[in-house]
């Protein structure tokens, strides 16, 4: 009898609590898209570049950080409402739109954000030969004039997993090498030996990408990650 009584109490409690009255609706809008230049997504390092969403109209305004994924895409699940979008000054390997974007969000919304990168990496080529990854590319300067930035280094990064960048320590980079000669930006070549680690299992593929660092700009611009099988 007593047990039944407790079961009854418990189930009653379960029923009364967590009813729809005392819960908020979950965020239902999806905001996604790419950071693009002329329609082409700009790959960056994972979780390094972000923009901020603000929802005006509330007493306390805190920014909602949206991180850009390494392929240049972003997505954020949000509440339906009016938002404004702005970049933190100095973020990203690009010049951001200077004016704040206002938009209304409900349901699914895909929006590409147009920015102007300082440089773009063109024609990246990756190849594998005898334990070495070779890569070549050219770097095209987009922004010229007073705002132009000089290329500081061009780096080939390889990793065992899909996440490849120079910032995440061993997590993002198994090995990396800088291009030795930056005099001809149309013809850059790098090659890096794949280090062997007896503690890690052999695998017959590797991920690679090229990154370009500009003087005075913290974030690097990358190519898309390329999987090399051998």
């Amino acid at each position, binding site marked *: 009898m007593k047990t039944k009584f407790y079961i009854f109490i418990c189930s009653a409690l379960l029923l009364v609590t967590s009813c729809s009255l005392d819960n908020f609706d979950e965020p239902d809008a999806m905001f996604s898209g790419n950071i693009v230049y002329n329609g082409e997504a700009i790959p960056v390092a994972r979780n390094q570049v972000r923009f901020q969403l603000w929802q005006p109209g509330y007493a*306390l305004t*805190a920014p909602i950080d949206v991180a850009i994924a390494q392929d240049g895409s972003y997505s954020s699940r949000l509440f339906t409402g009016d938002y404004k979008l702005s970049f*933190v*000054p*100095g*973020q990203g390997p690009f010049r951001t739109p200077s004016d704040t974007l206002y938009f209304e969000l409900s349901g699914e919304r895909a929006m590409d954000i147009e920015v102007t990168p300082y440089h773009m990496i063109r024609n990246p080529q990756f190849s594998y030969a005898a334990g070495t990854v070779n890569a070549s590319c050219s770097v095209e300067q987009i922004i010229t004039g007073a705002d132009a930035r000089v290329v500081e280094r061009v780096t080939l990064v390889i990793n065992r997993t899909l996440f490849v960048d*120079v*910032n*995440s*320590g*061993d*997590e993002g*980079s198994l090995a*990396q090498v800088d291009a030795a000669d930056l005099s001809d930006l149309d013809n850059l070549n790098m090659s890096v030996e794949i280090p062997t680690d007896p503690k890690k299992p052999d695998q017959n593929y590797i991920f690679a990408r090229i990154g370009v660092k500009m003087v*005075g700009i*913290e974030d690097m611009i990358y190519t898309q990650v390329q999987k090399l099988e051998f």
Partner: protein
Amino acid sequence: MKKYIFTILLALILALGCSKNDEEFLDRPPSSILTQEQIFTDPSAVLSVLGDLYNRYNDFGTVEDWPSLARFNVAYWSEAGRYPEFQNDGWGFGEWGTWDYGYIREINLFLERLSEATELDEELKARFMAEAQFLRASYYFELVKRMGGVPLILESETYDFSGDASYLQHPRETEAAIYDFIISETDALKDILPTDANSKSRATKGAALAMQARAALYAASIAKYGATTPQVSLPGGEVGIPASRADEYYTKALDAAQSIIDGEAGAYDLYTNKPNLSENFSSLFYDKANNPEAIFVEDYLVGGGKTHGFTIVNQPRFGAEEEEGGRINPSLQFVQSFELLDGTYAPLANEMGGDPVYYDNIGDIFQGRDARLAGTVILPGTTFKSKPVDIWAGVVLADGSIVSGDSRGQEKTLPGATGQVQVVGFDGPIDGLEFTAQTGFYIRKYQDPNTGSGRRGTQSDVWFIRYRFGEVLLNAAEAAFELGQPDVAAGYLNRVRERAGITTPLTASDVTFDKIAHERYVELAFEGLHFFDLKRWRLAHIVLDGNPINETEVTQNIGVATKRETQPYSIWPYKYYNPGDPNDGKYLYKISRLSRITGADRFQFGNYYSEIGQNLINNNPKLVRNPNQ
């Protein structure tokens, strides 16, 4: 009848029990609370309140918190729970933030109440006032170093419960304005505070001038080197100082430092009480008797209720007074940056043309270097508290293979031998084993040689020096150099270097920015100052650029201010075992990176000034965010 008696008695008790003096009778002064009047009429009570304010002095690095002295890969942290610090790749923007306006309010209240006090001796009152103002300026200095310009609140404020708190919300001052406040405040205080070189733990003229010199120097270098990183500034000047003000601040720094050097603030000088230069350098930090170098310190007293555990956590593990120690392990890069006695840089000679160099004694590889090396670091083959440390990593056999152990002082049988012998030191180094000297070194600076200092029941009362004469000399040298007086700079640098045993004095043409940066790096290491040097020279994002260090570059570019410092490296001594060979029993050294170090620190532009928390901005929307956050 009986009833009446009771009634009458009751009536009498009621009638006699109360009198018109009842109110006085019940109104007793509380015995556990002192009123404002009681405190501000009694000098010793005022001193107690002031003592509390002194106790709350905010230090970036302090012996009470050992990691705070050994950040930024100058050392490895040999404690299992701290390895993740070497596996991540940077810091959050909120790191190193401070925002204790409660402390400022209490100082302001103290000043206001003290200024209303009438029964105190005027001279004493002026000194108390000046000391509190000194503490307030010190905290604003700490704030501006970490946060940039902050609201400057110089009087206590009270909320009027009107529902509108906007009159309490103050915007941030410019970074320059806070530095100007510190400089003008110390100018006003220096002649009120006592000129007494023997008063170390209370504010003196020397302390005020030393703070002024440091603050002016920081402001000057932010003005000068901030120009190289325009990203690290705000349009309103809350962060960043105009480059045009650099010379003005450098002049101020040089003047303030020179007035200490010239003895205007009392008989301060370099500490030179011990004949052995290395011992002299280490005892400068623990010798409290006749120490002319310390200017302003946080003092401790065993048996007086104020002690710290710096020696407990850092004592050599072998023969330690507790089952712990050895946490701060200075890096190879730090150790090799100490110059040879002739003033040249050289890596530790562990290899020559690809072959190992064999040393007769374990410590020979460190011979002939700047005496501060052995004064700052416990090297293999040296002693602490007269006990030798036992740091060696294993035995190298004739074929180059290594026999080592995974517990301290482990014994194994070597090939071709009978019986077990020890194959690793009792202090390690063993990769990944906490409390062993994992880089090959322990820290010596601030370790207390007294018996009991490594016991939890006793602890240490070595003081923490906030300002010392050696730093004043280096501040003067830097300011003079930047003002185009390299001969003056060389003179000050040579005083510091001579004490370190360096035989070749610098000439005016030898003085470069790198030389000054290097001298501060080795002289002021583990004193909580290196970080602010990196910040104010805007070098932090270059030195900590997030790239791992490879084995070839680690021994190169010694003494270059922009040398990468993202990971600490190790150098381990090994015994050579090859009976019959002339090198048998000698020592060789191998450079390596510990397996636990997988990250490489990256200092972002947003790290230069700590983030002002969202809760603070919610409370005061006038606060602007720091750049790049």
